[in-house]
């Protein structure tokens, strides 16, 4: 056998190392920064880099749906998060890469975990990033680790947006999935205190709240939280539940596609077209059963071209150009499944399938 060794300029993952000197980054981020080989099923530009703090004992919360939950089997280092691996690299190496590929970068985000060192290390990494690069930086915060003063310090260090992973949008579902859990319970009130404090400190449309469809909420819960947040000039960002194997919700189904598409559409209409709540019909269980659009050419056009597919694109923090900068490709669906949220503008064929999934003829009143 003749073997020729070809040195590949590929870096392997580091061994056990912890934040702030080491961070995990999403598989897509590692590919965009060319720290990891790989490619996307469809060709599109990608520059939304997600960093995740890394500790030996991981996240101290224990949310039923999360890949990082304390009681999910396996070592923290081996756990997937939103179903993919998050390779570990030196923080400075990641920042050097972000600087190297700066023209392609659209948005950076540091995800905290619930851990005693999370605030201190997030601040450290924020400062390291903002010293070296100008790409806008969001923080996806862990409310139990923060207060107003710390939020202000993070802003002063250069973070321009705050995200809060509320995920479960009603008090009931939050309690069930995040409070009444085997270890590390979280508080609904604490989350909202941090949401409102962030809004005060960072300003209008500089705070977002992650809302996950599929954790047991009703459609009415979801729609109500959209209105509640928009009224306060806070963005709701929409996420689709995607079961993490071996998590306590590992066997739970994803939300049915028609439900998901309708929520995407209605959320867009509320945000961009000022759709009034009384135009949405619910049944006694809070299920959305109909939409009564105002008459007029503007609304006819909405239905005709589905807003060019924009409602079905990923919800995420913007880049400097105002377009979505954090697109999380294949974050809530496998490459073999239909795109739950598109990291690019859906094409003609995509819109054809989206229209079928929406079943508008059964939905419009």
């Amino acid at each position, binding site marked *: *056998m*003749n*073997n*020729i*060794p*070809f*040195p*590949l*300029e*590929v*870096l*392997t*993952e*580091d061994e056990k190392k912890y934040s702030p000197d080491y961070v995990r980054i999403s*598989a*897509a981020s*590692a*590919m965009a920064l*060319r*720290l*990891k*080989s*790989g*490619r*996307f*099923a469809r060709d599109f530009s990608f520059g939304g880099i997600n960093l995740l703090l890394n500790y030996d004992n991981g996240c101290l919360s224990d949310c039923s749906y999360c890949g990082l939950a304390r009681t999910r089997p396996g070592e923290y280092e081996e756990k997937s998060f939103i179903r*993919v*691996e998050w390779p570990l*690299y*030196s923080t400075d*190496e990641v920042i050097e890469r972000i600087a190297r590929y700066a023209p392609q970068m659209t948005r950076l985000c540091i995800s905290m975990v619930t851990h005693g060192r999370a605030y201190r290390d997030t601040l450290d990494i924020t400062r390291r990033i903002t010293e070296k690069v100008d790409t806008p930086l969001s923080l996806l915060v862990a409310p139990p680790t923060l207060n107003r003063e710390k939020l202000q310090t993070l802003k002063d260090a250069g973070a321009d947006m705050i995200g809060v992973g509320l995920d479960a949008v009603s008090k009931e579902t939050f309690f069930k999935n995040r409070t009444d859990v085997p270890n590390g319970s979280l508080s609904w009130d604490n989350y909202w205190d941090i949401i409102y404090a962030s809004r005060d400190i960072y300003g209008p449309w500089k705070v977002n709240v992650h809302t996950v469809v599929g954790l047991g909420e009703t459609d009415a819960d979801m729609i109500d939280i959209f209105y509640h947040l928009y009224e306060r000039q806070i963005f709701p960002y929409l996420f689709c539940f995607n079961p993490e194997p071996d998590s306590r919700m590992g066997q739970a189904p994803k939300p049915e596609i028609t439900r998901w598409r309708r929520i995407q559409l209605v959320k867009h209409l509320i945000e961009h077209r000022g759709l009034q709540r009384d135009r949405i019909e619910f049944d006694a269980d809070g299920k959305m059963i109909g939409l009564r659009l105002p008459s007029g050419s503007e609304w006819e056009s909405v239905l005709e071209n589905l807003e060019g597919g924009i409602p079905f694109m990923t919800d995420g923090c913007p880049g400097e150009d105002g377009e979505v900068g954090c697109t999380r*490709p*294949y974050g809530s669906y*496998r*490459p*073999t499944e239909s795109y739950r949220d598109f990291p690019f503008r859906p094409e003609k064929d995509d819109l054809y399938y989206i229209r079928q999934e929406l079943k508008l003829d059964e939905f419009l009143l």
Partner: protein
Amino acid sequence: MSQKKQIELRTDLYYDPVESLWISVQDGIARMGLSPLLQESTGSFVAVRFPKPGTSLEKGESFVSLEAEKHVGHLKSPFTGVVMQVNEEVVEHPRLINTDPYELGWLMEIKLSRPEELNDCIQGEEAVKAWFEAELQKYNDKGWLAQA
């Protein structure tokens, strides 16, 4: 700091330049798998689907479906023939394709109906090396490979 790694190119095999498959032939049966460059550039595999043994294939016909973390694709058969055997181990453990593409990560065996189709493959140390270097450059230009 991170460590550099290297991939090994076996030059005693045939290579299908269309799909970047390695091929070894014995008694008219071709065993095949992904070239180390193709596996590296696709990412971590999470699922593989094969036709059943006994299935007849035409050259150019889609025959294997591969799903990686962020990618899904179909491979086209380099040969006309009949599927003799598929590697059930990679169905159970798709990462074997990444960790051992030439040995444990082989994909399937086909009985060749037209052995002359092997002439479309690349063979010989110099030719294989030249082809691989060109492929390496192409994959790098597309941004599919990590860089130091």
